[in-house]
């Protein structure tokens, strides 16, 4: 059986009958699991299509596209990075879709015993280090800064802040116990429940709504296929996956 499959695969490779259609998706790392799962739906109905995931912070992915990286779809964790690409004419505006919403949460290591149930508890001297995404390039850091500013805690917490290059690194610092608290998305906290726990959610009125836009990149060599992927994100299949992984329904 295996030999037959192998022979068939080899034959396909040699004869070149299977046209290799490839899409490269630059995905904000908080969308990793969701896009991978939606990607499996996508390829199941399209034999011969291969998806490549390029994961990072939205700011980092934006800079790569500006530098001419061969990307077909950009999935950002904030409108700002998408807006900047749109102004530079690097995405196809009519393909742009907002497809998911998320919420901030403060997490802490599972074994930590400090009472951390409201924003002011972050000032507790036993909370020595707090990780947020680097606000210069990481959306979760931009939302966290906004929330802390609204709460009047931003200046006072400065000495405790440690900056991460993306939201998963922030989560990792918390799960390794290197920091006492961290700002991530609720959906990230959910992927590492064995090592971190949710402490509290900063009020959703303290920061702008966290919405995820997706769009086809201007220089995509497979714009139709890329557009089909973006459309799947807002289709019922996409919505089901997103809801199951904890993303909020769109208003």
């Amino acid at each position, binding site marked *: 059986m295996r030999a037959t499959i192998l022979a068939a695969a080899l034959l396909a490779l040699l004869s070149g009958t299977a046209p290799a259609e490839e899409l490269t998706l630059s995905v904000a790392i908080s969308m990793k699991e969701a896009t991978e799962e939606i990607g499996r739906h996508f390829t199941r109905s399209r034999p011969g299509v291969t998806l490549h995931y390029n994961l990072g912070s939205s700011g980092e992915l934006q800079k790569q596209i500006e530098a001419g990286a061969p990307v077909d779809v950009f999935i950002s964790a904030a409108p700002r990075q998408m807006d900047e690409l749109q102004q530079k004419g690097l995405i196809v505006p009519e393909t742009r879709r907002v497809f998911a919403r998320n919420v901030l949460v403060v997490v802490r290591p599972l074994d930590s015993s400090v009472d951390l149930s409201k924003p002011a508890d972050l000032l507790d001297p036993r909370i020595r280090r707090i990780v947020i995404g680097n606000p*210069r*390039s990481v959306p979760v850091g931009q939302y966290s800064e906004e929330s802390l500013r609204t709460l009047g805690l931003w200046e006072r917490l400065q000495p405790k802040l*440690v*900056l991460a290059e993306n939201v998963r690194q922030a989560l990792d610092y918390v799960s390794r*116990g*290197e920091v006492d608290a961290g700002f991530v998305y609720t959906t990230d906290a959910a992927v590492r429940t064995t090592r971190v726990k949710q402490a509290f959610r900063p009020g959703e009125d303290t920061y702008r709504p966290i919405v995820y836009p997706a769009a086809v990149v201007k220089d995509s060599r497979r714009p139709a296929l890329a557009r089909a992927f973006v459309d799947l994100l807002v289709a019922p299949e996409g919505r089901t996956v997103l809801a199951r992984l904890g993303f909020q329904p769109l208003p």
Partner: protein
Amino acid sequence: MTPDNLSALALSIRVALVATLLNAAIGIPLAYVLARRRFRGRGFVDLLVTLPLVLPPTVTGYYLIVLLGRRGWLGGPIYGLTGWSITFTWYAAVVAATIMALPLLVRTARAAIESVDRDFEKAAFTLGRSEWRTALEVTLPLARNGILAGLVLAFARALGEFGATLMLAGNIPGRTTTVPLAIYTSVQTGETGEALVLVAMLTALSCVVLVAAARLGARAA
């Protein structure tokens, strides 16, 4: 230059200087022992010191986290006792730079010490000098240029350390952001102009250092 870049430059020089001093304190005795003594585990010590030269810096950084992190083999007990942890402090940058630079000093200094004619040492022994004083008064002075070249290389390596530093010290502007990390962030955020100044400075400094090392090396030979 922006204040962040200035502080990155100041921090880089401070980290590289302290790392070079630590290298001198640890690396010169180590190079001497590896060059002149035969003992059990010598091959293992040599391997351990040289590994950071060939391992990806992120792997070295990972080992440092396992060892020194808040829950590390050494870092855990320290954190338990004092509530202090080295991660995300500038000391962490010093540790990373020291470990990464050590093989360059040890290998260069060791070769210089090995090339010292043993007859001089034997003469010193005959004249009643202990091994300790012979090393200080005969061997090391004769290997001086090679050791200095090694220190210069170690300084340059410490100045340019990136991977292990990022993992152990993080990238916190004003506290642990060294020049290589500032360049990384600037390029990441599209502030290429700022990065360019730092790139030029680091390149110039590294050229000076390499020329200095080459001159010292030529005199040693």
